[in-house]
C-alpha cells in the first residue's frame, strides 16, 4: 500500500506548496489523459463461436502529470478488467499502478526516480518505450540522471529494472551514455558532426555452474552522425558480450555466444527530392532483461529496439505479408543467426506546371527493401556455427518494391495510387512452410465538398500465390469513408479472401463504425470481423486471433 500513499502525497503537493507560498498562489500544473479500448466479442456463424472467457474485455489507462517549478511527477493507472483484450501479454491483468515517477529538471540537470522511458542513440542498444496497441511498456523502474554541462555535451547514467506486467523483470540494467557535439566543440560552420557512446549492462544471476557463465552481460555502442549541405549520414556499431544461449526459452548452459550489429545510413535531401538508404546487419542481437523470456511472443523484456526496417503500409491488403526482424540466434527449429539487408526510399515531387505535375504537382514515394539471413556454416548437433564472411547474404527472407503516387487534380478531387510487390519467406519469418509472391494494387480517391464534408473511396486487390490455409491466393478489398465535418466521420471497410481454394475460407473481414472528435476528446465505435494475423505498429507485430465483435475506443486529455 506504500505506493498508493506515495501517489496521494504526490498529488497533494499543490496544497503543501500553497501553504508555503500563499502570496503567489502557484499550485503547479496538473494535466492528464484517459484512454480506454474495449471489445465485446460475439459468436460468428461463419468463423465460429467465441470460446474464451470474458467476452467483454477492456484496457484502460489514466495518466496524470504534475509539474511545480522545476519538479515533475507522473503516475499511470492501468486497468485490464475483467481481462485484457485478446492475446495481450497475460501479465497485463487486473487494476494497478503501471508507472510512477518524481523528478527534477533544469537546463543542466535532470533526475528521475521511478519509471522512465529512455533511448540511447537509435535504440539499437537500449530503448524503453510504451505502445498501448501492442501491449508494450518496458519502462525502467529505477533512477536516471542526465547532465548537460554545455549545449554540445550530454551525459546520462541509469540503473533499474524493466517493467514486466505490473512487476519488474529479474535482471538489473545499468546504462551510461554520452552525446558529444563535435561540430560545436570544433566550431565547424557548415558541417554537423555528433559522436555517441553507450554502455548497457544486464545483470541476472542464474543457478548455473559452468565457469563460462557470467551473470553480467555487457554491450557497447559507438556512433557518428554527419551532415554537410544536402547530404547526411550516420553509422553505428554495437557489440554485445558473450552470453549463455537460450533455445525456445530454455537455457543451454554450456553454449555461449556474443553478438554484434552494424547500422549505416546515408541520405540526400534537396527541395523536391529526398533519397535515403539504410543498411543493417544484426547477429545474435536479441537482448532481454530476463534470459528465460527470450522466446516470448509478446515482445516483452526487450532491452534494445530492433524493429523491421521496411516500409509501413497504409491499407488492409498491403499489411498481410509484413516482415518481422530476425535478430536472434537459434538452431531450432531452423538455424538462424541474424539478418542482413537494407532499404532505399526515394521521395520526389514532380513540379507544378509540368506535363506530369499538372496544376498542383505530383508526389511520388518509392521504397525498396531486402532482408536475408546471415551466411554461415552451422552444426545443429553440437549447436555451433561460424560466419564465413561479414557481408555475406544467406537465405532471402523478404523483399519488397512499392510505389505511391499522390495527385491533387483540383481543389475538390485528389487521389492516391499504390502498388506493392512482395516476396515473403514464411518458412523463416513465421517458422512455418511456404514462400509467397504477392502484388497489391490500391486506388483511393477523395472528393471534398463544401462545409468540411468529404468522401473517400478505396479499392484494392492482392494477387498472391500463397497456399497457407487461412489467407491463400487472391484478395479484394474496399473502403468508404464519409466525413460530415472535422468532428464526425463514418466508415465501412471490407477485405475478402475470394480466391481461397477452400470455400469455407472465403471470408469477408468487414468493419463499420464511426468516430467523433471534439477538442481533446475522441470516441470511436465499430463492429466487425478481424482477420487472424499480425497487428503491426512501427515494425513490431502482435499476433491477434480471428475474432468478431464490437470495439469502443475513448480518449481524452485534460
Amino acid at each position, binding site marked *: 500500500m506504500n505506493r498508493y500513499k506515495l501517489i496521494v502525497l504526490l498529488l497533494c503537493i499543490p496544497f503543501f506548496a500553497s501553504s508555503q507560498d500563499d502570496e503567489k498562489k502557484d499550485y503547479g500544473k496538473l494535466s492528464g489523459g484517459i484512454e480506454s479500448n474495449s471489445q465485446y466479442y460475439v459468436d460468428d456463424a461463419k468463423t465460429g463461436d467465441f470460446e474464451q472467457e470474458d467476452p467483454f474485455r477492456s484496457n484502460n489507462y489514466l495518466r496524470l*502529470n504534475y509539474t511545480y517549478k522545476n519538479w515533475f511527477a507522473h503516475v499511470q493507472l492501468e486497468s485490464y478488467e475483467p481481462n485484457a483484450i485478446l492475446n495481450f501479454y497475460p501479465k497485463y491483468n487486473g487494476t494497478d499502478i503501471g508507472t510512477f515517477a518524481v523528478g527534477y529538471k533544469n537546463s543542466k540537470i535532470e533526475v528521475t526516480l521511478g519509471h522512465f522511458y*529512455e533511448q540511447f542513440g537509435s535504440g539499437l542498444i537500449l530503448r524503453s518505450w510504451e505502445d498501448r496497441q501492442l501491449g508494450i511498456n518496458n519502462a525502467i523502474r529505477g533512477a536516471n540522471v542526465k547532465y548537460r554541462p554545455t549545449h554540445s555535451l550530454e551525459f546520462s547514467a541509469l540503473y533499474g529494472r524493466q517493467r514486466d506486467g505490473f512487476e519488474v523483470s529479474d535482471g538489473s540494467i545499468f546504462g551510461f551514455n554520452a552525446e558529444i557535439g563535435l561540430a560545436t566543440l570544433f566550431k565547424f560552420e557548415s558541417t554537423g558532426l555528433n559522436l555517441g557512446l553507450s554502455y548497457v549492462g544486464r545483470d541476472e544471476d542464474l543457478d548455473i555452474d559452468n565457469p563460462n557463465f557470467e551473470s553480467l552481460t555487457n554491450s557497447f555502442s559507438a556512433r557518428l552522425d554527419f551532415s554537410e549541405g544536402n547530404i547526411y549520414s550516420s553509422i553505428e556499431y554495437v557489440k554485445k558480450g558473450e552470453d549463455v544461449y537460450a533455445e525456445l526459452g530454455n537455457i543451454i548452459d554450456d553454449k555461449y555466444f556474443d553478438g554484434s550489429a552494424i547500422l549505416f545510413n546515408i541520405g540526400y535531401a534537396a527541395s523536391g527530392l529526398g533519397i535515403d538508404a539504410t543498411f543493417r546487419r544484426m547477429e545474435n542481437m536479441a537482448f532481454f532483461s530476463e534470459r528465460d523470456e527470450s522466446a516470448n511472443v509478446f515482445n516483452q523484456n526487450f532491452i534494445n529496439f530492433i524493429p523491421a526496417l521496411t516500409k509501413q503500409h497504409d491499407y488492409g491488403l498491403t499489411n498481410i505479408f509484413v516482415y518481422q526482424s530476425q535478430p536472434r540466434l537459434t538452431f531450432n527449429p531452423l538455424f538462424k543467426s541474424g539478418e542482413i539487408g537494407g532499404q532505399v*526510399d526515394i521521395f520526389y515531387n514532380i513540379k507544378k506546371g509540368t506535363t506530369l505535375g499538372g496544376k498542383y504537382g505530383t508526389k511520388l514515394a518509392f521504397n525498396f527493401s531486402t532482408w536475408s539471413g546471415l551466411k554461415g556454416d552451422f552444426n545443429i548437433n553440437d549447436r555451433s556455427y561460424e560466419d564465413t564472411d561479414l557481408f555475406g547474404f544467406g537465405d532471402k527472407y523478404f523483399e519488397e518494391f512499392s510505389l505511391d503516387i499522390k495527385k*491533387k487534380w483540383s481543389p475538390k478531387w485528389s487521389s492516391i495510387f499504390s502498388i506493392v510487390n512482395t516476396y515473403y519467406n514464411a518458412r523463416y519469418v513465421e517458422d512455418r512452410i511456404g514462400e509467397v509472391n504477392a502484388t497489391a494494387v490500391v486506388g483511393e480517391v477523395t472528393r471534398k465538398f463544401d462545409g468540411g464534408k468529404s468522401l473517400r473511396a478505396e479499392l484494392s486487390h492482392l494477387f498472391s500465390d500463397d497456399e497457407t490455409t487461412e489467407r491463400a491466393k487472391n484478395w479484394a478489398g474496399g473502403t468508404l469513408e464519409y466525413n460530415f465535418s*472535422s468532428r464526425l466521420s463514418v466508415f465501412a471497410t471490407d477485405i475478402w479472401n475470394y480466391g481461397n481454394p477452400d470455400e469455407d475460407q472465403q471470408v469477408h473481414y468487414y468493419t463499420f463504425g464511426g468516430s467523433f472528435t471534439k477538442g481533446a476528446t475522441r470516441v470511436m465505435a465499430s463492429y466487425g470481423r478481424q482477420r487472424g494475423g499480425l497487428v503491426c505498429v512501427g515494425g513490431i507485430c502482435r499476433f491477434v486471433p480471428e475474432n468478431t465483435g464490437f470495439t469502443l475506443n475513448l480518449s481524452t486529455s485534460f
Partner: protein
Amino acid sequence: MKILNTLILTLMFTSLVFAQDVLPRMQVKTLNGDQIQLEDISKDNQLVIISLWATWCVPCKKELDAISDVYDDWVDETNVKLYAVSVDDSRTVKRVKPLVSGKGWEFDILLDTNSDLKRQLNAPTIPLTLLVKNNKILYRHSGYTPGSEDELFEKIKEFSK
C-alpha cells in the same frame, strides 16, 4: 477499487489546478540535431501551430500537404508559424528529412523520437494539432478530415489578432 477511490478523491481535491493549458517545458531536437527549448518557439506573442505527425500516418501527411498548399498565404496574412513535430521512432525517423524535402514542405520540423512530448500532451493518437501563443495552448484538435485546415485557419485568424 481502493486505488481508484484514492485517485478520484485526490483528483477532486486538486481539480482547481487542472487544465492542460500550457506546453510542457522540455528540449526538443531539430532536424539538424540541435536542441531548442519548446517554450521559446511561441514567445513574444508569436502564434504557432504545432502538429504532431509521423511518416507512416496517412491523415497526418494529408493535413500537412493541405496546409503546405496554402502556407504562404497563411503566413502573409497572420504571421503564423508551423512546427511539425515528427513522432517517428528510430525505425522511421531517417525517412523524415527526405520525405519533407520530397514533398517540399517549408515548415520547421522537430523530432520527438521516443514520444516524450506526445506523452506529456496525453495524445494517444495523431495527428494532433495545437495553436499556441506565449506557451499557452489556445486550441486543440486531433484527427484530420479534408477541409479541416479551413477551420484551423479561422482559429488562426481569431488568435492572431
